[in-house]
């Protein structure tokens, strides 16, 4: 989210006496930033639980900041405080609360908070400072069923900034012209797509004819960090090989080429993606509910000259990694590392980024712990129960402890498939679950 407006902010000490101030601020702020009453209430509930949890366990006088960021289609509540003792394991998707266990009463609120919002993630956690983020999205009416005719080929077109009406038309055209694997499900909800672009997190270059007819689109998402994620290009009624696709990509590159991003990643490519502009990273298998699989290709291009970097790797995966780096012509120093009995905390945390409508989930290790194998098993079992056929794990090769998890993944039927350069602190390695019994 990169809403251009300054966030709403309140600073106060962590003190249970002030919990009503937090709830009042959250609810009113969320409403002011565009959430509906129901969503604002859920965010408020989550904020209350997190604040209460922090206040119960904080040392007296601990400072606390709550910021509300408007994102157009959502509101992000950011909790910032110095913290060492927070039991983050309760943010695992698989956490179950035992009502008979009084010792876990303190944690119940965190479980409720995690379930009341759409996304939860840590922005920073270095052992002393915490930035915990709760994201609640607006609720939109489902797209009205409309018969959207495919536009005729455009003899001439111009590239324009996306307006609300054109974005709504885009949502309808996408549903009619492209399979669901080639765009995020949110793009099908016209009002949401409009808000996503208006909020500044998503951007769209459109090609329109003389009378404003929509001929094509390329979208991208800038959420800070090193990677810009792109979608498309989508062409409607244009002949194969139309230069419109390259022009749309160039319009995006003109915007992001001078940003602080390092990469333009395309995980939702179409057949119209101009190959000269992108590098082929590889592919995942995309599993459909009927058990069939189709390839899921990934492309990217760097936006800057690659300075080289280091990658941490378990010895078991060194051959794979070297081969991948050679194929991609990426200069990397591979450092081998393995867990060798050093102290680890007891509990791990895995963040789950889910897209139910598309049937895939990506797990990202957030906190290391001795229970990683069991935690991973629980997550896989949950996903399988929920009939999510595509389970991936993303490891950041810039973090040594992520490399320590590689053999755990291999033992549990995960296969290394894809390198995403500079997608994290360093490159990310994506593993795909291959269905081995656990």
């Amino acid at each position, binding site marked *: 989210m990169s809403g251009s407006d300054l966030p709403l902010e309140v600073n106060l000490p962590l003190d249970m006496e002030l919990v009503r101030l937090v709830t009042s601020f959250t609810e009113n702020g969320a409403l002011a930033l565009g959430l509906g009453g129901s969503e604002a209430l859920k965010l408020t509930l989550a904020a209350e639980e997190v604040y209460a949890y922090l206040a119960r366990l904080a040392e007296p006088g601990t400072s606390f900041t709550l910021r509300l960021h408007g994102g157009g289609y959502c509101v992000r509540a950011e909790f910032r405080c110095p913290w060492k003792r927070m039991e983050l394991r309760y943010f695992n998707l698989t956490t179950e609360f035992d009502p008979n266990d009084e010792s876990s009463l303190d944690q119940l609120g965190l479980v409720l908070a995690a379930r009341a919002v759409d996304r939860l993630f840590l922005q920073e956690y270095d052992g002393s400072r915490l930035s915990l983020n709760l994201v609640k999205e607006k609720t939109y009416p489902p797209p009205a069923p409309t018969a959207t005719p495919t536009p005729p080929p455009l003899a001439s077109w111009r590239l324009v900034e996306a307006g609300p009406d054109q974005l709504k038309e885009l949502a309808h055209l996408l549903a009619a012209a492209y399979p669901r694997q080639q765009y995020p499900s949110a793009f099908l909800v016209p009002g949401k797509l409009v808000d996503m672009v208006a909020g500044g997190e998503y951007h769209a270059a459109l090609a329109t004819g003389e009378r404003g007819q929509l001929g094509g689109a390329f979208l991208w998402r800038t959420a800070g960090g090193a990677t810009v994620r792109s979608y498309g290009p989508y062409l409607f009624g244009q002949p194969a090989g139309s230069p419109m696709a390259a022009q749309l990509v160039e319009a995006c590159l003109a915007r992001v080429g001078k940003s602080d991003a390092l990469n333009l990643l395309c995980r939702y490519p179409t057949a119209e993606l101009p190959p000269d502009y992108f590098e082929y990273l590889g592919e995942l298998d995309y599993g459909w509910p009927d058990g069939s699989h189709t390839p899921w290709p990934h492309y990217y291009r760097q936006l800057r000259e690659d300075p*080289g970097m280091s990658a941490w790797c378990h010895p078991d995966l060194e051959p794979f990694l070297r081969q991948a780096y050679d194929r991609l012509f990426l200069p990397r120093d591979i450092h081998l590392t393995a867990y060798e009995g050093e102290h680890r905390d007891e509990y791990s945390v895995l963040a789950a980024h889910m897209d139910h409508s598309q049937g895939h989930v990506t797990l990202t290790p957030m906190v290391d712990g001795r229970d990683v194998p069991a935690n991973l098993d629980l997550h896989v079992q949950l996903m399988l129960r929920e009939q999510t056929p595509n389970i991936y794990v993303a490891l950041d090769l810039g973090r040594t402890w992520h490399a320590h998890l590689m053999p755990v993944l291999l033992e549990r039927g995960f296969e290394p498939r894809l390198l995403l350069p500079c997608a994290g602190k360093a490159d990310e390695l994506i593993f795909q679950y291959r269905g081995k019994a656990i």
Partner: protein
Amino acid sequence: MSSLAVSGRQPDLTRLVPAYVKSFEAYVPSKPDPELMRTYRVDHLYRLNNNENPLGPSPRARTVIAGFPPPRASLYPSGDAYYLRLRLAERFGLDPEQFLVGNGANEVITFAIKAFCESGDNIVTADKTFAVYEWVATFSGFEARLAPLKDFGFDDEGLLSLIDGRTKIVFICNPNNPTGTWWDEARLRRFLDCLDGRQIVVVDEAYCEFAEDPAFPDGLKLLKEYPNLVVFRTFSKMFALAGLRIGYLAGSLEVVEVMRRTCVVYSVNTLAQEAALATMEDADAHVAATRELVRREKAYLARELTGLGLAVQAGEGCFVMARLPMSDTLAYRRLMAQGIMIRSMTGFRFPNWIRISIGLHPAMEAFVQGLKKIL
């Protein structure tokens, strides 16, 4: 990994950092050559990325550099490059007070913007040109309005259409880096006449000494007629003192007097000032030798690139652009793996183009062979 205890409170950067700085991309310079060679596992590196003069400094400048007495490093330099300004004035027939010398052209760009822009003002330049005008304006909190190039050149109509009452400076890169296109004197005069003194017009002539076309204008000669004109020049390119960081601007007495208020004194070191002075003693011979090299190698490069079926853009200047059928950043990595360093152009808003600086013939040959391998 354990972290050291921090005794003070962390600064609230969200509040402290201005929005225009938050949204701004920090310039990340290339790593030093030894680091790049280690990273890319090569034992040599042809630097064809920074438009450096492969002949190096002129003989007179080399003598000064080699003979610089170490004890003088303990003394402050002339704070305003006194002798160098005298020499520049003598060479170009201007008043010494019409010159400001800075720590490279980048610094004199900041002099101009700091002197004339305040909150709500804007600058106007092209979208695909030397990036520092846009950078300095943006990170200083001023809007940079960008007119698209037309046929690879600065579009006077486009520039004029962006100018309003809050436009303080128009930056024109002549010849343009990276396209090599340029305005002749008549076109420059027309543009200056249109503005009629309402804005400062900066003409960046960093590469003017490479221009061989007799119609190429000399901005310094126009200063008497156009008091709103400011000309930037540098000793980094033709005169090969890039490592010493020294450049200058020239303008009318009144305009330069204003800019002097914002300039950083003592920012140009003694060795740079003295090497620049020396290079003016044998400048003509050095320019002639460099031009001959650039002319010859540019022709060779254009011929080879065209032969490979690539689109080529070359004008005045010591560089050539080529459009590749692949990502320019991929080409950068694959050429680096062969010890050849070019400039990828996505950051210039020329995706899939690369810019090749003119080097000595072995470097040019190595580049052509390297390029053939990756196409």
